[in-house]
């Protein structure tokens, strides 16, 4: 079995009375594009900073390629970071920024120049060598930061909200580009984001963080289709939970279940449902027309509320908005409903 690029064991970090990271175990394989996803304050950035060496853990260990680096300084670790604000040195040219790490490692001048230019080429920034960071756009700065980190050929590249400061259009472009660069260089990318869509589109696997802990680790499809907890269900995609009375009536089962909105079919007439399908009757409370799709908010007769997302294949806004207040049935296939760990009941020790 190949070494894990990153292994975290029982990682904890407290800032005074606040426990930012409350016990994290995680393995990231070599060459993976891995996302740490969570809301702000969930501890994901602190974990990243502990891997980089900017923070030292209160407890637990950090291993890089099988080597324990928990007590090592950042300059002793084989990782490089792309910072959220890019942290380009404002008094240096683009080329000097990219060469910085190589100069520190005393790489000979000719090789240094060659590698830096190659790195700038790989992020499509040739011709910008002499510019200062202040003379670049946000997207260009982001790519300089990427080149400056990649030129050192680290074992793991850490990215802290790499696309957070870019506007939507540029962000979508960079998502594709980052993924292409990662495939090209073959380096493990470990990135932090609070944007679930970004995590779903770019990564091979995702760890969902909440309150200093990991709630679920899995591929984007696993995390999205089968959220392990109510938190994951609500944070990744739209929360659509059936529980309590509704679960007993509609599903005939106890517990909490998750169904994604696009798996629900809004049925108006007397259409027959298949043997493997569940259905729930309700009233349309709200209709939100969103271009390619329409979102129906439906109050179930059995209690609770579900959101259904329908592609506007034939429908237009005139057709759908008239459905507010209409009686409908929501139909879905059994295999799209998943049980979710209910919030843990307090256990009283005897």
């Amino acid at each position, binding site marked *: 079995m190949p070494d894990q690029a990153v292994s975290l064991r029982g990682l904890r970090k407290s800032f005074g009375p606040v426990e930012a990271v409350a016990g994290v175990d995680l393995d990231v394989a070599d060459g993976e594009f891995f996302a740490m996803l969570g809301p702000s304050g969930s501890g994901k950035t602190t974990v990243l900073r502990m891997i980089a*060496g*900017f923070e030292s853990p209160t407890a637990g260990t950090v291993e890089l390629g099988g080597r324990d680096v928990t007590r090592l300084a950042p*300059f002793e670790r084989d990782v*490089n970071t792309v*910072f959220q604000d890019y*942290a380009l040195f404002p*008094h240096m040219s683009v080329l000097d920024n990219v060469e*910085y790490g190589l100069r520190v490692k005393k790489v000979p001048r000719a090789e240094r120049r060659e590698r830096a230019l190659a790195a700038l080429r790989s992020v499509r920034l040739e011709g910008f060598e002499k510019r200062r960071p202040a003379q670049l756009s946000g997207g260009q700065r982001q790519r300089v930061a990427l080149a*400056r980190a990649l030129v*050192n050929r680290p074992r793991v590249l850490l990215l802290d909200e790499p696309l957070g400061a870019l506007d939507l259009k540029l962000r979508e472009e960079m998502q594709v580009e980052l993924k292409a660069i990662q495939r090209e260089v073959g380096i493990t990318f470990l990135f932090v984001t609070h944007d679930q869509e970004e995590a779903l589109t770019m990564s091979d696997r995702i760890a969902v963080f909440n309150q200093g802990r990991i709630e679920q680790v899995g591929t984007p499809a696993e995390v999205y289709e089968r959220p392990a907890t109510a938190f994951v269900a609500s944070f990744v995609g739209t929360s659509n939970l059936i529980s309590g009375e509704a679960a007993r009536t509609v599903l005939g089962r106890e517990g909490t279940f998750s169904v994604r909105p696009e798996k629900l079919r809004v049925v108006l007439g007397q259409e027959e449902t298949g043997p493997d399908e569940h259905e729930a009757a309700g009233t349309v409370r709200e209709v939100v027309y969103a271009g390619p799709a329409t979102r129906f908010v439906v109050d179930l007769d059995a209690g609770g509320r579900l959101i259904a997302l329908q592609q506007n294949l034939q429908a237009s806004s005139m057709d759908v908005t008239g459905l507010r207040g209409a009686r409908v049935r929501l139909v879905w296939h059994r295999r799209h409903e998943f049980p979710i760990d209910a919030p843990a009941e307090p256990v009283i020790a005897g």
Partner: protein
Amino acid sequence: MTTTTTAAPAGVRRRAASFLHRHSGVRLSLLLSAPLAWLGLAYLGALAALFVTAFWSTDVFTGDVVRVFTWANFTDLVTGEVYRTVALRSLGVAAAVTLIDLVVAFPMAFAMAKLASPRAQRWLVIAVLTPLWASYLVKAYAWRVMLSSDGVLGWGYGLTATVVTLSYLWLPYMILPIYAGLERLPNSLLDAAGDLGARGWRTFRTVVWPLTFPAAVAGSIFTFSLSLGDYITVKIVGGKTQLIGNVVYDNIGAANNLPFAAAVATVPVVIMLVYLAAVRRTGALESL
């Protein structure tokens, strides 16, 4: 009746306010007139008077100022060996004080800006500022006591004592600009340097120093000019040492030669102008 009497001035005030709002040029000149008058009359005027006086002389018998143009003061100043020595010594003291303050202030400012908790940071700023509230004379005499041969330090008085005392007195003026400069330096730049393999000294040399250089220059303008003009500290702890300030003081007092004092006083002014011009060439003033 009361309503009309109160309404009228309110109306005038509102009309004045809207007039000022529309005429931003008038607003600007009103705001600037007081500081500009101060700068023009009190500061530049005094400087001009000093400069003019430097070209006059005194009557040998009556001691009255003779208002006739002469180069005599400046000729004496340039040819007199003792004045050259004093000028160079003053320059040396100012340079030494600036260097010492820089070396002492930088680590302190760094600790304040980058290592201390926000709470500790506030207290440290207060701690740095507090000595500025105490009388200059008291602080100088405190050093006199410490430096006297039976004092805590016991180094005795002289040039070294002067440099040490001045370095102490002007230290806050060096710490505060550097502290402000370091505050503006994003922590992520320090992280980035470490991340790219740089250790402490290299990070300082290649990232921290180039980016806080303007702040250090700002501090040095204070320490340098304050040292250059000082004559009290050197009287208290300097022993027989004389600086430019003492020559000026003695010519105003004992020698009663105001024109010559004025001529001597132009020396630090010229040195500061040269210093500022040199600083300007480094580009440090633009980023202040």
